[in-house]
Structures are given as C-alpha cells and as structure tokens.
C-alpha cells in the first residue's frame, strides 16, 4: 500500500515506537507517562487518517471517536499525575525503580 494513507500510518507507527521506547527505558515516572500519552496520540492519528481516507468520509465516527479518546486521555493524565505526586510524597523520588517496593 502506498499513498497518503500509508504515509500517515507509518508516521503513527513511528510515533508509537518512540513513545514505547521512552516508556520502557526512561526512569522518571513523569516521562513514562509522557510516553504513554505519545502512544495514545499515535492511535488517534490512525483513527483520523482512516476516517479521512476511508470509504465513508461523510460519517462522523472517526472524529467522534478521537474526541472521546482525547477525553479519556485527559482523565488518565490527571489520575496518573495524582498517583505520581502521592508516591513522590512517600519515597521523595519519581524514579520507577523505587516503585518496585509498591508490589503487594
């Protein structure tokens, strides 16, 4: 497959891979959360690209789906950062190495 849709899909795959690499290798929990946000955004880009180049661009499903996805990402960021602040208060660090002690 080639053409504009493939370009957007490859770009989204690259964005996803960058976010994954960061989430897997960085130590700081906030940067890990940023990586997760990047992966979510790559998925959103895929949804918009498929909607735009799909067989039925009059339908609104693609845009609506992305709006809901962005809303969920906002809620996730708020709760995730709240958790990070709480854990920081306990361990005085945001390194994910420390979080291993949270294992029940």
């Amino acid at each position, binding site marked *: *497959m080639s*053409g*504009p*849709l*493939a*370009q*957007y*899909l*490859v*770009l989204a795959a*690259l*964005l*996803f*891979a*960058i*976010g*994954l*690499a960061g989430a*897997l*290798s960085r*130590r*700081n929990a*906030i*940067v890990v959360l*940023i*990586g997760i*946000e990047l992966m979510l*955004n790559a998925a*959103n*880009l895929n949804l*918009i690209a498929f*909607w*735009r*180049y799909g*067989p039925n661009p*009059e339908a*609104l499903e693609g*845009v*609506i789906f*992305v*709006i*809901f996805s*962005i*809303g*969920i*990402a*906002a*809620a*996730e*960021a708020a*709760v995730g*950062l*709240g958790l*990070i*602040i709480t854990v*920081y*208060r306990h361990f005085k*660090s*945001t*390194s994910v190495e420390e979080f291993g002690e949270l294992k029940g």
Partner: protein
Amino acid sequence: MQSAFYILALLTIAGALGAMNFKRLVHCVLSLVVCFAGLAGLYLNLNAQFAGLVQLLVYVGAVAILVVFAMLLTRNAEDAPQNAGSTDWYLGLGVASMVFLILAFAVQGSELGAAETGKLSDPSVKAIGKSLMTTYVLPLEAMALLLTSALIGAVVIAKGPEEGGKP
C-alpha cells in the same frame, strides 16, 4: 498538501524524540508541546478541524500544563541521570524498533488502498454537536461521569493524608 504533511511530520517526530531524550524534565515537556502542536496541524491537514482544535485545547492547553505542575510539585534534588547504553535502554530501543518494523511492514504489505480522495468531507461543528447530542448521547454522558470521577479521584489521591486524621 504534501509538503505541509512532511513539515508537520518532521515537527511531530522531532518533538516526540526530544520529549523522550532530553535530560531535563522541563525540556521534555516543552518538546512534548511541540509534538502535540504538530499533531494538531496534522489533524487540520486531514480536514478534521474540530479534532485538531480539541487537540490544541486539551493537550497543548491542559495536559501539558498538568504535567508542568506535577513536575514542579515533584522537583527532584538530583536530575535523574540518563543512562544511555544500559540494558534497559537497549531493551526499550530494541522492542520499539521491532514494533515499528512490524507495523511498517504490515502497512506496506497491506492490500487495503485509500479510497478515492476526490470528495472532501468537511464535518461542521454543528453536525458533530448534533450527533453528540443524539446518536452518541450515552457515550457523552458516560464521558462526563468519567471526567467528574477522575477529577474528584485525582484530588483525593493527590491530597494526601489529613493532618492528625486517618489517611
């Protein structure tokens, strides 16, 4: 159209790479803002005006500020040293490049072609609002409930134990 795509794609990828590679957290967040802005531009390029502006409002406006606040509240005495070359780093890079290669090959080998791109749909905000209020009213209400509970939950989690009270 095409050159706009390349410029925005470059901006987005550069922003993402910076967000994952800068040592200082402030630089990471600023780079993330560049990445989100590039994505909003890509949405506009794809004729999804409403999604692009929502992306700009929610991500560049709200999420980035939220991350900055969390960063300021958890200021580390030491900037966590980046260990490029450790096993974790190689592991992350290896898994990520594997995932990218698999996805890219899947896209290139796919039979699915783009539909004819002659007709450009331009969904108005009015149409989106109407369908949010009719077809998608149940998901919309569920989203409202989720956002409310996330707001309250984040406050309760981050507030910490009360003075002299039970945690």
